[in-house]
């Protein structure tokens, strides 16, 4: 009987349950996806620019972060479940249902809901892992090797983790419901007036918050000065600063707004402000945490995409020439003809024993391009400049060859300089070259319009050359194309991790906020009903909800964005320009965050806005 009652009330709140359930499903799916990566050493080893051991450490660090945020997420989701149910269960108890029975019921409900969501989440996770991996590979031109979307250890870890958490949650819920007096369950909606902090103490905290944030930002900008100390220092000051900012600065601002009667006494503002004041007080720790997580997530995505930006720039600096043709055939020539060529030059050479000869006049006619590396004094990464030698640089002399000539020997070499080439280069006049015995060979250097666009075509040319002339394998394996392939493989792991961690963090933190806010919705029903009776238009009430929740989303988001903007300073060490193209990750991030905001507002309105019955 009781079971039936409990079930029928689930039906009446189906929408909220669907949200809760799908939230849990997403959490489980995300957790599985990450674990499928973190515990899969094959994947890590091949796809990261760091060694497998280092990456393992980073991934484990990420996994711990994810576990922590999942833990908090479940706490909030669970408290939403509890507030949703406590009135009904309180009612059953008042009707004489045995406490033990109720405890059992809520235990079962929590547990089944959780486990159902976990299993479905894992299945979705397996599918998603496959889809996401494919998508990334396609979209970004990355290469992911050894990526197995179903991975037993990950499946089991996820199951065990969620099982433990849900048993904990179920015990917690049943304990809480059984311990709380029935009357309190029924009247939990009434909120007491908050103790007001002393204005002076508030002002001190507010200033402290801003000062701590400033100190944290300063240390990240001046990482050159503070070295490694900057990171823990920034972490502590920014966490504390965020906390004080929410605990005091924003509350102080709200109070200022409330005090200005000409502002607050218009329309429903005073109510909205009071709601916010109450909420922010209640949410201080959570909002501070969200601003930090927001920054971590957005930072991860920004850095992930930053690596991607860098990759193309880096690849361009691997070699001044995109393709080098060591051998010719009709097949190869046909493939070369398909390239969108910007410039090409052919040079002759002759090999005699350990000596290799090049023609001075050819080089003077078409001097080579090269990369010039500046000497950088700072700690930031810098890219070389593309330059071209002048004709007069190619001088024949008995002394050590100058830069231009040495460069020509390297660029036009037919054995890898890394492979310990024992060929000695010589620059000779055209006449001398003609006098030399032996066969004249040709080497064509090509620059295309767009290396990334031509990459597939170049791959085919390289393969054809390797097949036709294996004696050049040493240089071909060190070609720009080969290096680009390797670089892409190394960076793709980093990019993937950045994007994945960033997006899953975002999903979790936004859902945390959502459930926290929705948990409060049930106690707000009466207030909105009251306002409705007083003649507040539905549109006014809706706008008030949108504003209240909007501020709760915007404040941690805004603070998080500021954290990131300063935090990117740290990545000047690893990235060419951490700020380049950041609008893209910011946009993606804000869109997703906005989606959660919209969902929260919609659900919240569904709970609190009174429905005016218009039938007939």
């Amino acid at each position, binding site marked *: 009987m009781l079971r039936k009652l409990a079930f029928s009330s689930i039906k009446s709140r189906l929408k909220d349950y669907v949200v809760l359930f799908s939230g849990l499903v997403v959490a489980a799916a995300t957790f599985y996806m990450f674990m499928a990566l973190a515990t899969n050493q094959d994947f890590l080893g091949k796809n990261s620019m760091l060694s497998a051991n280092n990456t393992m450490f980073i991934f484990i660090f990420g996994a711990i972060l994810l576990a922590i945020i999942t833990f908090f997420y479940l706490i909030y989701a669970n408290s939403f479940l509890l507030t949703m149910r406590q009135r009904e269960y309180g009612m059953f108890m008042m009707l004489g249902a045995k406490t033990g029975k109720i405890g059992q019921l809520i235990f079962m409900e929590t547990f089944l809901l959780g486990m159902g969501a976990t299993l479905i989440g894992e299945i979705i996770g397996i599918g998603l892992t496959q889809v996401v991996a494919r998508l990334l590979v396609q979209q970004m031109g990355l290469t992911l090797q050894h990526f197995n979307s179903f991975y037993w250890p990950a499946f089991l870890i996820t199951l065990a983790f969620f099982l433990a958490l849900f048993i904990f949650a179920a015990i917690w819920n049943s304990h809480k419901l059984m311990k709380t007096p029935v009357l309190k369950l029924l009247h939990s909606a*009434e*909120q*007491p*007036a908050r103790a007001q902090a002393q204005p002076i103490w508030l002002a001190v905290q507010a200033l402290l918050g801003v000062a701590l944030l400033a100190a944290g930002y300063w240390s990240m900008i001046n990482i050159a000065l503070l070295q490694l100390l900057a990171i823990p220092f920034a972490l502590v000051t920014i966490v504390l600063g965020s906390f004080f900012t929410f605990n005091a600065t924003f509350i102080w601002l709200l109070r200022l707004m409330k005090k200005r*009667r*000409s*502002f*607050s*006494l*218009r*329309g*429903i*503002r*005073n*109510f909205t402000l*009071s*709601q916010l*004041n*109450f909420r922010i007080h209640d949410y201080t720790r959570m909002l501070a945490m969200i601003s930090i997580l927001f920054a971590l997530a957005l930072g991860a995505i920004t850095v992930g995409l930053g690596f991607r930006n860098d990759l193309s720039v880096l690849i361009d600096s691997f070699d001044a020439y995109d393709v080098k043709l060591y051998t010719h055939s009709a097949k190869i020539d046909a493939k070369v003809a398909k390239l969108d060529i910007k410039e090409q030059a052919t040079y002759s050479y002759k090999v005699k024993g350990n000596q290799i000869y090049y023609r001075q006049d050819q080089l003077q006619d078409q001097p080579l391009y090269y990369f010039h590396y500046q000497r950088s004094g700072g700690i930031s990464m810098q890219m070389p400049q593309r330059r071209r030698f002048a004709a007069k640089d190619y001088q024949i002399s008995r002394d050590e060859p100058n830069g231009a000539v040495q460069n020509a020997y390297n660029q036009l070499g037919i054995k890898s300089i890394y492979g310990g080439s024992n060929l000695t280069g010589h620059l000779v006049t055209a006449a001398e070259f003609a006098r030399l015995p032996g066969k004249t060979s040709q080497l064509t250097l090509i620059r295309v319009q767009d290396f990334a666009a031509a990459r597939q075509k170049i791959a085919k040319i390289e393969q054809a050359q390797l097949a036709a002339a294996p004696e050049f394998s040493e240089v071909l394996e060190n070609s720009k194309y080969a290096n680009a392939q390797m670089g892409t493989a190394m960076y793709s792991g980093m990019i993937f991790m950045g994007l994945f961690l960033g997006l899953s963090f975002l999903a979790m933190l936004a859902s945390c906020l959502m459930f926290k806010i929705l948990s409060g919705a049930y106690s707000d029903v*009466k*207030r909105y009903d*009251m*306002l*409705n*009776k*007083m*003649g*507040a*238009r*539905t*549109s*006014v009430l809706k706008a008030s909800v949108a504003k209240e929740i909007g501020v709760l989303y915007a404040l941690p988001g805004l603070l998080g964005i500021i954290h990131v903007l300063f935090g990117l300073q740290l990545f000047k060490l690893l990235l060419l320009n951490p700020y380049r193209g950041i609008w893209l990750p910011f946009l993606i991030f804000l869109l997703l965050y906005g989606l959660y905001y919209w969902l929260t507002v919609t659900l919240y309105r569904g709970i609190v806005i009174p429905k*005016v*019955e*218009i*039938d*007939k």
Partner: protein
Amino acid sequence: MTNEVVKVQHLVKTYGKGNEKKFTALKDINFTVENGEFVGIMGASGSGKTTLLNILSTLDKPTSGEVRINQQDLTQLKGNQMADFRGHEIGFIFQDFNLLENLTAAENIALPLSLQGVAPKQIQPLVMKIAKRLSIESVLDHYPTELSGGQKQRVAAARALVHQPTILFGDEPTGALDSNSARELLETMSSLNRNDQVSILLVTHDPFSASYCQRILFIKDGEIGSELRRGERDRAAFYQEILDNLGTFTE
């Protein structure tokens, strides 16, 4: 004619849409309230008192019949018009006060004015005026949890009256008060009615509260069963008559 603030004719309210179970809460209600009258509505639990009040205050729509308040036909109102109508023409007091706990007493009272777009400068004096009238000036800066039940109800009354509505509706406003606070509130209401010409419609099942009214309508099975007028009698005599009437009425 123009003196009627409330006019209800052949009002029917049936709950349950479509193929849900139908229940007719109000069958055929007819009555009027004159400007400046203090009218009570009594009836057993479930007789439809709250339903009637909800319809009168545009919170619910009648199934059929005509409802006019201050000459305005409520059935013609749509969406925002209903909300605006409630905001301008009606004041409410409820059994459970319904104050917003996160606003001070003064802010609670000011809210209807803000909602109507009254300029912030004009709000303060209006709040002070009604607070004086209800003797709650001293608690204006308190939050609802810091007020006694009686004070809360007077704050609620102040909020209901601050915008000078056409009519004040009370749904068991004394229900949660002890007898002294209840008496005080009723005295205040009847004084507002006598001296400030506030029209009041009071729903109650308590004969003592009802005895403050000038006229009492008894609802039974969704219809107005009978009506009592106080006339020139004193309250004690009226109270006695209500008790007698309730005896015969409930039989």
